[in-house]
């Protein structure tokens, strides 16, 4: 009898896990020194089901093809001055927030997946992680190349790398990813692979990419479409990892649950910046943050956690609080940036009447009651030449690092304050979620590089606001402050006057 030919699955197994071996000249624990301290128990790595079967030749072929197409669009966009066709120059501020706040996280993901791709003992997930490491490098590099063209014309983009490591609000996304990178490989996989890439990714990428589509930014949209197939692989990996950990040993459940709770809340806090972008920064809004939250978390996340309930996993702690906050968070964040516009690397503005009406319609429970009056008052103050600035340095939450401006659950008129005491030091938090995370690992979060503390300690270029802005490499009067009166606005008006002239 002729021996049986391999099926696709076995063939792929030979191409990947067949390559790996149990070392004998060095102990396995020395070869993989980092995958045991977290307490995760894996009985059988070979039970891992490869979520997708991609050999390197196929990877190069698909990815190479996608890159050819993407760069053709980027070149054409630059050649045709596509930046003049966006809905309004205010839109460019979305790209500023994206490149300073999100793209550096793609880089961190690239290095983090290289870590997991080397240090997880199972060969199946390791191969998948390495491909994701490559993909994430792709994302940061293509984002830079996409936004590079905007950088030639708009302010606030040029110093994205320098700013990410320093500017006060950018420590929110940076500390989020530093947190994941300094965790063990299993926590990293739950934090980034599952919580971020699976549970929350649609709340990050859909807003930015649909925002780009609605606002005539064809180059960013093309990037978004091109990254979609990468993201679907990342999501599959994330869900496989959590199921695998939960299937391997019942002792893994409480550890994984704790990580899911933590990373859901961490992610929710970072996404507050996206919420603000969606509701306030898109000249042509796509949908409200609240709507996005309902679709992508309440509904999609709801069925996900129903599915995971068979492993004993529960909906993340404080998911209900986060859902309630979806009524407020974008408004509260925009208020923070409006007050601190002098220290922000993008422009702010008060919404016009049409936009206020849109917000009233989208937030019938909260906007007219709590936020519209404040915006109208601030707009009035602007008119009288008394634009409102907050010159006091804010207190930051020790965990998420956002200024303490969020309100109590159920009471939108009272600011929430929580605190914990460790070794005679008092630490402050914006919420129960952030306090719980700190209390779970106080040694870790006591280390936070808190921008305001650092300013007071003299580590940020000096004691005055101009000193600090200089240290941020912020081009004062161009990168910061209101859109109205900015060089961006002036340039935009010139382009449009030109277009009108040409048309006549």
């Amino acid at each position, binding site marked *: 009898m002729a021996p049986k030919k391999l099926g696709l699955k076995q063939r792929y197994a*030979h191409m990947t896990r067949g390559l790996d071996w149990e070392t004998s000249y060095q102990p396995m624990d020395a070869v993989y020194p980092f995958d045991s301290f977290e307490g995760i128990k894996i009985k059988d790595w070979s039970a891992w089901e490869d979520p997708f079967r991609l050999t390197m030749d196929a990877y190069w072929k698909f990815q190479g093809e996608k890159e050819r197409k993407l760069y053709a669009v980027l070149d054409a966009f630059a050649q045709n001055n596509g930046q003049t066709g966006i809905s309004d120059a205010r839109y460019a501020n979305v790209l500023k927030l994206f490149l300073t706040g999100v793209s550096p996280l793609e880089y961190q993901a690239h290095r983090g997946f290289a870590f997991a791709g080397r240090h997880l003992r199972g060969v199946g997930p390791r191969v998948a992680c390495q491909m994701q490491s490559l993909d994430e490098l792709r994302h940061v590099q293509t984002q830079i190349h996409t936004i590079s063209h905007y950088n030639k014309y708009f302010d606030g983009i040029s110093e994205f790398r320098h700013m990410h490591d320093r500017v006060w609000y950018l420590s929110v996304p940076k500390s989020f990813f530093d947190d994941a990178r300094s965790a063990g490989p299993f926590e990293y996989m739950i934090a980034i692979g599952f919580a971020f890439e699976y549970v929350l990714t649609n709340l990050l990428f859909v807003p930015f990419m649909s925002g780009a589509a609605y606002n005539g930014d064809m180059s960013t949209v093309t990037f978004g479409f091109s990254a979609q197939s990468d993201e679907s692989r990342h999501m599959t990996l994330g869900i496989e990892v959590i199921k695998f950990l939960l299937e391997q040993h019942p002792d893994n459940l409480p550890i994984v649950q704790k990580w899911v709770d933590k990373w859901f809340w961490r992610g929710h806090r970072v996404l507050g910046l996206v919420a603000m972008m969606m509701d306030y920064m898109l000249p042509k809004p796509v949908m409200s943050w609240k709507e996005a939250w309902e679709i992508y978390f309440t509904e999609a996340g709801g069925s996900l956690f129903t599915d995971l309930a068979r492993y004993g996993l529960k909906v993340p702690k404080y998911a209900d609080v986060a859902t309630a906050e979806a009524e407020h968070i974008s408004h509260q964040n925009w208020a923070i940036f409006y007050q601190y516009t002098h220290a922000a690397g993008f422009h702010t503005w008060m919404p016009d009447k049409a936009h206020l009406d849109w917000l009233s319609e989208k937030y019938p429970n909260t906007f007219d009651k709590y936020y519209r009056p404040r915006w109208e008052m601030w707009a009035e103050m602007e008119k009288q030449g008394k634009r409102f600035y907050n010159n006091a340095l804010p207190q930051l939450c020790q965990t998420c690092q956002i200024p303490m401006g969020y309100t109590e659950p159920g009471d939108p008129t009272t600011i929430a304050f929580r605190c914990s005491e460790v070794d005679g030091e008092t630490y402050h938090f914006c919420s129960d979620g952030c306090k719980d995370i700190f209390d779970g690992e106080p040694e870790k979060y006591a280390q936070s590089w808190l921008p305001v503390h650092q300013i007071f300690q003299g580590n940020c270029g000096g004691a005055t606001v101009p000193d600090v802005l200089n240290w941020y490499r912020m081009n004062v009067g161009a990168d910061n402050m209101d859109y109205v009166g900015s060089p961006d606005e002036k340039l935009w008006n010139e382009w449009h006057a030109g277009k009108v002239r040409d048309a006549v």
Partner: protein
Amino acid sequence: MTVQIKTIDLEPKRHTFGHIARRLGGDKPATRYQEATLDLQATDNFHYKPLWEPEYWHYDTRKTAVVMEDWYKPLDPRQFYYATYNISRANANQAVERNFTFVEERDLLGKLDAALKAKLISGLLPIRHLHWGSNMNMAEACQRGYGTAVTAPCIFSAGDHLGMAQIVSRIGLLLDEQTGAALDTAKDAWMNDPAWQGVRRLIEDTFVERDWFHLYVAQTLGVNAVLLDLVYKHADAAWGPAAVPVAMLTEFMADWRAEEGKWSDAVVKTVAAESEANKALISGWAKTWIDRAEAAARPLATALLGDAAAATAAADAARTRARSLGLSL
């Protein structure tokens, strides 16, 4: 007739990002390689020490004993960023496909006699495990290294080694009529055949090297320059009538070695040239790993070719190469 396409010229406010302009010494147009690479990795104000290694930050220059004033000196002469890397590999892979089709259509491996097939199975196929080990090392250099200029090409290299391991696996499937039996036999040789044990011991010893640049030197000058070159460059005579099909099916590896070697040579040369101390460290590492690779290569060369001359030839070529990079061995 000439067609005139009108495009508007809008005067840009700046040509590149601030950190790139400082590198270029002024605001000048930058290449995509430069914008995708220079100063991309975070360097300052990290928040938490890694739970798994609290003595370092996750990006930390102290993870190797060599010291660079600037880790963006060792640039990639190929100027690879993700797009150009993938497009280049996709192109190279088209040749791989053509070669496999050619060999398959003529059944050039299938009709070899059993003894030669067995020799390919135990003598060539186990190299796929060495590629896999090399993949682990380059992933490690990527995650542990410092500065995107070096670390990004390391993950490309890791991808290359996985790809090459898979090309060798496909050769195995041609030899065993797609059953996987040859791969199982080859793995047994990798684990137990005395001819391979020196090689396996060597690569396992690199797995526990935590100094990432030391690892980089061991991999590129020890594993690549001695062991891979022995098998792909100095062992033609071992394959007898299969030499031509083997050369065709491993053409990717030959081209890859020539191309990646330019990059890894440039990196080693630049880092060694930084200081006498670096040069001394790297020279010591290179000597150790070339010597060890030679010792590991000798039984393999003897099994393949009847004596160890090819192992010495590969090691001597690696030594000459190392000296040409400014190392003293």
